[in-house]
């Protein structure tokens, strides 16, 4: 779990600059900058964890000699979550980029997206299947993303 008061790592700063176009002053944290803590990095961190888990599972399937697993791997497991993840990410990017009166509006939209994500995590049947794969590849999609959503919701509510 990230700490809002901790300085951003160089990797985090590079990420923000590269993908979000956000340029932070040196040494500053979100809290120090007097802004609401950024939600996107939290989400991206969780998304990356989940992505790695899925990639690991997919890689393992590729090693399997049975064509079934090859086909599953070729079909791609990332598609299970990528659409929902992107929607929330877009909302969070708007939230982080907003200021003033628009901040509150963006927070409300992000919360709606967050709730949709929670519904997805709860109702999707593939996720528990992936998590209980028989190959002992660790997959914790719901737990990882759920924890990230908790943190993000706190930020949104504080906006």
């Amino acid at each position, binding site marked *: 779990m990230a700490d809002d008061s901790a300085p951003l790592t160089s990797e985090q700063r590079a990420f923000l600059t590269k993908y979000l*176009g956000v340029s932070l002053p040196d040494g500053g944290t979100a809290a120090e900058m007097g802004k609401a803590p950024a939600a996107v990095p939290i989400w991206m961190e969780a998304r990356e964890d989940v992505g790695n888990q899925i*990639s*690991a599972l*997919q*890689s*393992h*399937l*590729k*090693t*399997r*000699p*049975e*064509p*079934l*697993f*090859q*086909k*599953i791997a070729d*079909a*791609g*497991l*990332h598609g*299970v979550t990528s659409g929902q993840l992107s929607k929330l990410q877009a909302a969070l990017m708007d939230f982080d980029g907003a200021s003033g009166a628009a901040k509150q509006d963006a927070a409300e939209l992000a919360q709606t997206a967050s709730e949709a994500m929670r519904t997805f995590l709860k109702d999707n*049947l*593939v996720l528990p*299947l*992936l998590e*209980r*794969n*028989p*190959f002992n590849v660790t997959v914790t999609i719901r737990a990882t993303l759920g924890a990230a959503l908790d943190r993000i919701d706190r930020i949104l509510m504080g906006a």
Partner: protein
Amino acid sequence: MGNGKKGDFSDDIKWGIELADHLGVPYGTDDYWPDEFEDEDEDDGPTLEEQQRESILRRTSALAAPEGAELQEIKDLEGAKDAVHDRLDVDPVGGDDIVQGEILYQRAEDMVRDIGLAISDRAEEHRQIDMDFHALDDKKGEIKLHQTKIAAARLKADEALKQPITTSHNATARQAVEALEKLIDACEQELRDLGGKDGVGQIFSAFNITGDELAQLDQAFGSRKAFLDAMKAFGGPHELAVFCGKFGQGMKGAKAAADLANALGGPGKIQETAKSMGGVDKLAALQTKGALDPSQIAKLCTEMGPAFIGEMMGASSDPTSVIDLQKEFGAKITDFTDLVKDAGFDAKPKALVALFEQGCKGKADEFKKLCASFSKPAEREALKGVIEKGGLGDSPNALAALFSDGCGGDPETLKTFALAFDDDTKRDGLNQLLDKGGLKGDDPAIAPGVLGAMFKNISGDKPSGESDADFAKTRASKLADLAKGLGADDCDNLKSMLVKGGLGADPEVFSHLVGMGCGNGDLGKVQGLAKALAADATGLERLDDLLKKGGFGTKDDAKADTGTDPKCLAHLFNPGCDGKPDELLKLTKALGDADRKALKGVMTTGELGKNPKIIGKMYQHGCLDDPTGKHDGKKTPQVLIDMVGEFADKDGPALFKNMMSGSGFTEDGKEDRLASVLRHAFTPKHSAPKKQSAKSLRKLANSFNGHFGDLKTTMEAMEAAPDHILERNDTNEPNQPGKGLGNLIHADKYKGDPSNLRAQLFVPLKTRASAPAAGTEAGWSSPPSPPKMTDVKDLLMTAASFEHRPITNATVQVGAQNYDFDMDHAAGRHSRKHGKFHLNSAPHMGTTLFHRDVTEDDIKDSVSKGIAPANITRQGPNPGNRTVAPFVQRRTPPIDQHDFTGNFMRTNGDDNGEVSRIGFLNDGGTAKITQYYPIASARALQHVNNNDFITMNNVLNTAQKPLY
């Protein structure tokens, strides 16, 4: 892990089937088992791991960045592929290597996919940007300035869109398109704000600028919004440009105006300030002429108020005085602001300025004192009452004059004035007096100082011993009561007096007229005077003439100073006309042009106009229709006309002046002299008509010309005479010196003409007084003859005591015996009523003069009573008659005059204290009383030296009287 046999589904396969079903991945039963189950009999080749590595490497090599990938994406992909190779570049390759290699491959593969997606996204984004860009194609701008800007921005966006599609280029293009869009929006908004194409044209025209210089306007005003706000507040560019132009040319003026607007609180505020100040010229002058910066101007406006500032600057827009005034107040500016706020001056700036410029003569320190003096709220409230309700706020000139003249520039007195108007009836009255009465100060026929003069003079002269402060209270209270009491009609009448009667041009004259002239502002008298005058149009015209042509105004018809006292008219009215308006009107109308001219000469050059009290008394007494009547009787203007007419010649006025001053007519306390002389000295006492011969004043003046001190001595003698010699003055009875002088002038020798009075009377008497006593002037021993008079005044008053009344009967019978008594001698010599001067043949013997009241009858009565003891009746057939038979015989001792054979003298006295010596004369028949010499009297008996008596006779009578 798979179990390696067909038909035997492991849990792995079951999980895979379930997952494939959820994912919609098509599969068949052959997919449940690995291919090796079908080729398990083939020769051993590369190990499974080697085969798998080969597969991975082959697939990895096949990975390539799609077209449109960015360099970094390509680098990243290559790096990912390198990582696969690196990871599998081991020998022997194991299962774990394969797993890790597969993971790395998967990452690279995902990267390719992601790159593809990114490329697709960028293409889509580029397309969207391009679409957005072209959506703006028809937005080219309405004015050249905008067109230029938009074209430049469009070109920039177009170029950005032409760059290869990358994230960076997309961002740049997006920014450029957004910038273009914002610019277009801004231009459109600006155009709307500027009033469209027409509005922009007007701005350029108004400020004489081109489009490129519009930004300078923004800069001058601080922002476009500020400029637009200003333009909106001013109602248009032309109005704003004209306004700015007052502060300087071009942008300099605009900036100066904008800076000032900011300092004052915005364009609306500066406009409001300029309006309150009376125009932008004045506001600008604070900067251009006063060299004040915006903050200083704002401070000045806050402290002194724009309206006051504008009024202070006047038509020339000169800010010097108001700036100086602010400096004078310094930290004490609250004295000013409190007065402005609490006394109602905030809405009456003209009044406040007038109070400063006229009331305080523009002296800042005096004005500061004035403001400071109203330190208590109640005092300022009182002032507010007369400013607002009382109307003085709308009468600035009247207010200023009230302070400077009416209050003498004393703030405390102004305070007293304000406090006296302590209720609305008084304040309303003041307002009405200003408005209907015409005292506001805006009527050209009525000077603004009328109200102030009324306040100053409403109660007449200050009583001795009364403090200035107490007298101010008296005056204020009187004026307040008068204002309260005067109705609308009264005010109309007052205005008629002022306008048509010419009094409006002479506030002092007017104020004294309604002050002391009307019993110190008595309401009824003021009303009566105003009503009577207003009703007589001709009278008012003549009153105007009297002021301007008759010398009763302080300025004549040529507006030259007359030098006359403004109280003259008041005294002419009261006591002159006894306070009766009809008498004043009668006088004004009786005067013709020549009369007024003569009157003016006497008033001005003759300096009668410097002596208002003399004028009042002179007209009251000297012009009585019946000079023997009461002082408040009807007047005859002709007396005045005659008097001044005699001094109408070239030398007349100067002679009049010399007479007045040289003879002591103008001395303090002698204001009655001229009245007394005019009333009594020229009025015959014992012959008709008993009218004043006022022309004789000139003769009197001529007589004493060059020697007016002698006339003064003469008059002083009359005034100093004891009561038994001359009738004393009394209230409203200025008997002396008129009556004494009249006795002299109407003596036998002058017969009412005083032309030679000095030469023939004063000079001889003076000579006699100066002559040394000698010879027989030692006098008679029993009773002692008085010494000669050495003071000419004694001779003058004694000579003046003879009234020259004819003796009724030359011979009267006295006593029971009916003696013949020579009254012609007795009264003629000893009574002042007659003055026949039967002179004594024996010069050593003086004479005695009775009290002025003793008459013929008194003398007869006294003699009759004195001889009563010898009242013995002669017996016989013809008593008392020796010429008619039968004759009676003389008796011895003699019983009555029939028995005397010679002269006889005896002392005769009565019970009243009258003692005289009487002499019987037998001239051959019946003895008569032919000698009479009073020795003592119950009343004062004057003993006069015989030569003095002779001298007096000589100066009063033309012929020598017979000697006895």
